């Protein structure tokens, strides 16, 4: 596996931070928006330019600065990192277009600050994707938490204040309180923090210490929203919808899961992780999260809160997939990052479009909305199908691999969990679609003329819907990347 050293990974991280200067500098909104879009496109181009090398099996590395003995701020682009970065940067372009429409139509205040911190959080996300060791990962993880705080609390009202406080308490508190000691102990035990193919913890210490260490990591990365550390996610729904769309469906939460997967595969290594008999325990925790989150989602009336709980459930799919330690399960888990991203972002875009067009937030008020906003609700339906995992949409493939993985690791209970949760997904998504199209609105509040969301919101909406549809037929870049990643981890053929 050849190592190419080039500055591209660092450039990919840097490009959106530099865009921040451009956004602050110019006063007129249109130029400011072009800066954001330009940065987004540039970022995608840089990431895509590294794709062929990674597909060939190579890894691109760049060392920025040696900071601690044996540990440097170093970037290494491997298949798994590339998969996540590709998803994040491509969706950033779409979300920028969407947020221009959303912010302009709602005439939100201090948009410059919004776009700056948005760009910063994206550079942090890509930074996490490309980090080569735990320290760089922790650095960008913290930067992401701090960059998203002003976004979550954008409305600056009392509710934003309390949910912002909860957001910080969970995320920054757990990262300093749990991840930092875990990193220090790992550094003490192994002398290094960098991710090695087979994991660095092989024979480091007693099994009990290693288990404690693992749970410190698992619950430390609160962004993965594993059950006890999940309640910041519904609270963060107070943010404007593009923020919850990109960050709380794609970037922030996936970073948490990404870190957990990195810890399982690259820090502990699959054989040491297996040896510690942790796999059933983690699977149990993940499945509890899946089932509980799906049940709570059933009872949520707010559309965004329901989507939030569904995200918590879907995230634990990925942890479950990887924790099964079977190659197919891992591929499914990693693929689910991409599939769920496209599906869930469509749903959030629809929620935002409904709010922009009609100002409605709760599902109970959305009876018969399909007649008035057919395109949005159609996209909502496609997104829902992808998240549930029905065949014509991309979500089906990742769930298919997950099921195969569960069978391969002959974990029958996990299989049952996967299937029941898919049913629960259907249970809380399909009624919305049914009520939107087939029920007639009791109150004739709505004049029956078609009143869609502004074009700026609608186009990205349809694009992501079509994308999640197309992923079913050509899952190519993500599937191969996932396969390469799994091959490098399990050292298989």
């Amino acid at each position, binding site marked *: 596996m050849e190592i190419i050293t080039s500055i591209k990974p660092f450039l990919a991280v840097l490009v959106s931070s530099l865009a921040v200067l451009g956004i602050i500098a110019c006063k007129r909104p249109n130029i400011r928006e072009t800066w954001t879009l330009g940065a987004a496109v540039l970022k995608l181009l840089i990431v895509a330019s590294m794709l062929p090398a990674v597909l060939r099996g190579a890894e691109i590395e760049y060392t920025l600065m040696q900071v601690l003995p044996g540990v440097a701020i170093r970037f290494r682009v491997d298949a798994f990192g590339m998969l996540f970065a590709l998803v994040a940067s491509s969706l950033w372009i779409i979300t920028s277009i969407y947020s221009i429409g959303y912010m302009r139509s709602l005439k939100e205040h201090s948009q410059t600050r919004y776009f700056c911190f948005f760009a910063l959080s994206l550079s942090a996300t890509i930074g996490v994707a490309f980090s080569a060791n735990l320290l760089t990962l922790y650095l960008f993880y913290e*930067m992401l938490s*701090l960059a998203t705080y002003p976004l979550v609390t954008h409305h600056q009202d009392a509710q934003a204040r309390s949910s912002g406080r909860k957001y910080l308490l969970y995320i920054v508190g757990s990262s300093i309180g749990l991840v930092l000691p875990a990193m*220090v102990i790992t550094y003490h035990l192994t002398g290094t923090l960098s991710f090695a193919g087979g994991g660095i913890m092989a024979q480091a210490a007693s099994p009990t210490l290693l288990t404690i260490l693992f749970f410190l990591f698992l619950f430390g990365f609160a962004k993965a929203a594993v059950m006890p550390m999940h309640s910041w996610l519904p609270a963060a729904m107070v943010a404007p919808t593009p923020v919850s769309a990109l960050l709380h469906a794609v970037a922030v939460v996936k970073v948490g899961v990404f870190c957990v997967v990195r810890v399982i595969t690259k820090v502990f290594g699959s054989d040491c992780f297996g040896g510690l008999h942790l796999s059933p325990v983690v699977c149990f925790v993940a499945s509890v999260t899946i089932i509980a989150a799906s049940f709570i989602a059933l009872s949520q009336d707010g559309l965004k809160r329901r989507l939030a709980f569904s995200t918590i459930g879907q995230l634990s799919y990925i942890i479950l997939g990887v924790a099964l330690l079977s190659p197919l399960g891992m591929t499914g888990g990693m693929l689910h990052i991409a599939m769920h991203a496209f599906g869930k972002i469509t749903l959030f875009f629809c929620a935002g479009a409904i709010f922009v067009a009609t100002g409605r937030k709760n599902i109970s008020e959305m009876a018969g909305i399909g007649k008035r906003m057919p395109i949005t609700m159609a996209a909502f339906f496609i997104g829902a199908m992808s998240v549930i995992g029905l065949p014509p949409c991309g979500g089906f493939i990742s769930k298919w691999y997950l099921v195969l993985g569960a069978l391969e690791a002959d974990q029958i209970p996990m299989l049952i969990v996967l299937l029941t949760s898919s049913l629960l997904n259907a249970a809380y998504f399909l009624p919305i679609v049914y009520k939107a199209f087939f029920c007639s609105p009791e109150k004739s509040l709505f004049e029956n003329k078609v009143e869609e969301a502004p074009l700026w919101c609608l186009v990205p909406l349809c694009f992501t819907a079509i994308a999640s549809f197309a992923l079913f037929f050509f899952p190519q870049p993500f599937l191969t990347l996932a396969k390469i990643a799994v091959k490098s981890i399990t050292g298989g053929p």
Partner: protein
Amino acid sequence: MSQQFPALIIIVPLLAAFFIFTVSWINRKLCFPIAVLSLAISLVSAMGLLGMVLSNGPVEYRMGGWPPPWGIPYYVDYLNALVLVVVYAVALINLLACRQSVRREFPDKIGSFFTLYVLFVTGLGGMVVTGDAFNLYVLLEIASLTGYALIGMGKGDAALSSLNYIFMGTIGASFYLLGIGYLYLVTGSLNIADIASILPGVYDSKVVLVAFIFCITGLFLKMAFFPLHGWLPNAYTNAPSAAISLIAPLTTKVMIYVMIRIVLYLFTPSFSFGALHVGSVLVWLSAGAIVMGSLLALGQKSLKRMLAYIIVAEVGYMTGGLWLGNTEGITGAILHLVNDAAMTLCVFLAAGTLMFKIKPSVAGELQLDDLAGSFTKMPYTMAAFVMGALSIIGVPPFCGFFSKWYLLSGAVTAGHYEFLAALLFSSLVNVVLFFRIIEIGYYGKPGHRAESGHSIAHMDEAPLDMLIPLLLVAAGLLAMGFYTDDIVTHVIRFAIPAGIV
């Protein structure tokens, strides 16, 4: 010329101080430029000295030409060359930033303020560089005396708190003097290196033990180590903002440097860590200091009083790091000493700038709620404050994280998990403290305040000559974060004597 650097560091500011006082009677405008010039020269020579030490090892400069045990030598090795540069850099940056606030607070005593300022820095610089124990006491007295005066001129009950500071400070200095006297009684010499060579013969005598106890207690008093920190909060809250952003970052740090110098170079590690078993007790004490300092900071309403209690907690970091007794712990302590000076300077400069622009509701003390809406009105000052806050919390790219990292790994290797727990607890409390302020600054509307009602609508961005040094320090925090490894491998690694495991 370069061979005279050690003397230049002290002589130039000393002569400048006397010159400023005489000139202040003739033409008050000249005082500030002379002060800046003198500190700039000494900063340059301090950097030159650091360069000399890095290239060809420790430098010894004999005062009056007499060989060490008889005359007073300067012994500049890796440890104090680094601290010296920090002391002068902090002093110079603060001097550049405090011109307007000095002109506003003491319009007719500018000359004497700058004289005291330069004498304070000379005292600290001399203390860092000297190789003679008694000379260290004399320089300690100059620094404390000028410190008492600078603090005494504040608003509110500054005089009373400065008087309390005098009593506690004099007890501390007298204990240190007593310790040196006992050492002299047993070894017959006052030179640090000389005592260290004679001491092994008399390690078992009770006099050396008592000398150790009194020296360390005296220094604990002077550095406001937790149980003996009573004087610090009042003194640091009521002091004038120009003076406190000089005193806060430097006094406690140089006192900790003196403790490191004495524990590692005078009593040599074989005695401090080997013969005495006081190390683990002191680590427990510093863990307590960290926890109590952070808790007390939580309960404060005024911004400066909160920062003062954070300093008390930071002192716990460094003492704990030193007394862990292993290489990471001591590297962490020395690195934290350097980082913390910069962080405290950044935060106190920002507080001073805020104090300069916002009229506080309670006389003299800027309450936290006065910061309402400061993000919109004073974005750059608050940006610098946030960077300082993140560094104190320990967020990676900033330097605070890396020194905390060394302290944590030192605690893990030494098996002191209570120190590790205390460090993490204090970081979490810092998160709450600083985000409480950011929240107030972010959410509040400028110009409206429920209870006092008078609007501060005129609050606008600080003048440029206060802002540039502040942003310079904030950027410095980032730079020090990135260059941590160079500082550690090229300088701090050599500063630790052989006896450490």
